């Protein structure tokens, strides 16, 4: 377990989620990220109203990410055994929160509020 190359890391994630689900998730994440950059460039500014709304989704994203990983690995909150476990758990929650915020922001900007309509 000493050499952790990028290739191994990919293999690990394929193992966690299964290759199909993993690559579908990678593609979905990439598409959402691209769409996010697209709306940022299109609008030339960040919309703080949309950002506020996106923030509301963050706790949900955090919880969903944690539950998803636990479900995939036969784990539970009672399995947290030390500081490193807590750090991993929080890391997963943060990733879920940020992912949810980006998703909601992008969705909002693309489909709900066209630029120009909202006040900055």
């Amino acid at each position, binding site marked *: 377990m000493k050499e952790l*190359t990028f290739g*191994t890391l990919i*293999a*690990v994630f394929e*193992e966690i989620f299964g290759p199909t689900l993993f690559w579908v998730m990678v593609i979905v994440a990439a598409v959402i990220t691209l769409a996010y950059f697209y709306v940022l460039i299109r609008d030339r500014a960040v919309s703080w109203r949309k950002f506020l709304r996106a923030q509301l989704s963050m706790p949900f994203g955090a919880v969903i990410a944690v539950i998803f990983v636990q479900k995939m690995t*036969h*784990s539970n909150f009672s*399995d947290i*055994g030390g500081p490193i476990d807590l750090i*991993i758990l929080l890391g997963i929650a943060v990733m879920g929160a940020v992912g949810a915020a980006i998703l909601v922001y992008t969705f909002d900007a693309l489909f709900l509020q066209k630029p120009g309509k909202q006040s900055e």
Partner: protein
Amino acid sequence: MSQSFNATRRGFLGFAAGAGALMAAGPGATAAPAPIDTKARIVVLGAGAAGTALANRLSRRLNGATITIIDPRKEHWYQPGFSLIAAGLKPAKYSVSQTGDWLPKDITWIAERAAEIDPDGNKVMTESGKTVPYDFLVLATGLVLNYGAIEGFEMDMIGKNGIGSLYAGPDYAAKTWEAAGRYTEDGGVGIFTRPATEMKCAGAPLKHTFLIDDIARKSGTTKLDINYMAHNKGLFGVPIISEKLRMLFGQREITPHYSHVLKSVDAGKKMATFATENGDAEMPYDYLHIVPPQQAPDVVRNSALTDPGSWGGRGWATVDKHTLRHNFFDNVFAVGDIAGVPKGKTAASAKWQVPVVEEHLIAQIAGTKSDASYNGYTSCPLITRVGRAMLIEFDYNNDLTPSFPGVIAPLEELWISWLMKEVALKATYNAMIRGDA
């Protein structure tokens, strides 16, 4: 506000670019040494984890060598998965792949059992009578499970009448769960054994004990009487780990019985007989997990490559414990379970042994010397419950050798160690047998 966001966005883009660079540089970051031209004939006996990993690495390092691997088994078994299968956490197919899928394309695979080794004549005879001459021989045969040594036991008992044995293979591990799963619901007396011989993954009998106890308790089964039968006065070969296990058993109300070695089983009466210091002891059971005695396959055990006077005649190859080179035949190496070394019958050990054999073999071909040395490194993500494990790593000196000191404590039951076992281990194992890690 907008200014600060721009800064963040720049930072974010920078991060993304960095990640991209890492992605591009990642797999090829370490430059491989130039291959060596040779006409050497190398025979590898066994296409398990160690043999396959070595064949892959040698075929990359050598140009023009004739590499032959001899193994009749069409299926490759990911054995670290057996514990998970036998606890109902993974299906049998989780551990099964095809041997041929892992082997390099430019080698010869003889899908036959090796019948005889002639180290003086530098040749191997296969079961069908083929003679395969070699310049270098690598023993990677693995070991055999000697179920015949347990009186009254038949393979078809596994999965029925409260008998399990997860070592026997992926299908038997799944059958083991059929019996163990019933026990987790019905409760009663559970007896978990281990042999008195050297064995592969000495942690596996303990993992099974912990997992079945955990699953039974979580499903609300009371009336549990779980017993672990140690073959000597310790629970594990490494004293500090043995002590930790003693404490865990205390907390979990698992009763250790020392110096109890399974001798025979009466499946009809559900009675197990143990050889103890005070003669035979009979114990009734509702669930019995059997780990049979283990020894070298006959092809090595009956050859000149082992010393019949050592290892109780179990036939492990007589090699130097640091170089893994044979003590008397300097063109013969042993890697993996077959090596007669005091520790290291695990896939993690194979991962550390393979590069050592590779370096010495290549140095010998090139006419140089290598100082590569195997220090007995063994690792075992010792599962203590579904969701937690202790990542224990140690060497010949019984020293703990944690890979992530200060981050992943070796004697603590952690979720991250469980994640490593359940999700990261198979990926690293696969990378290892491809020769990549």
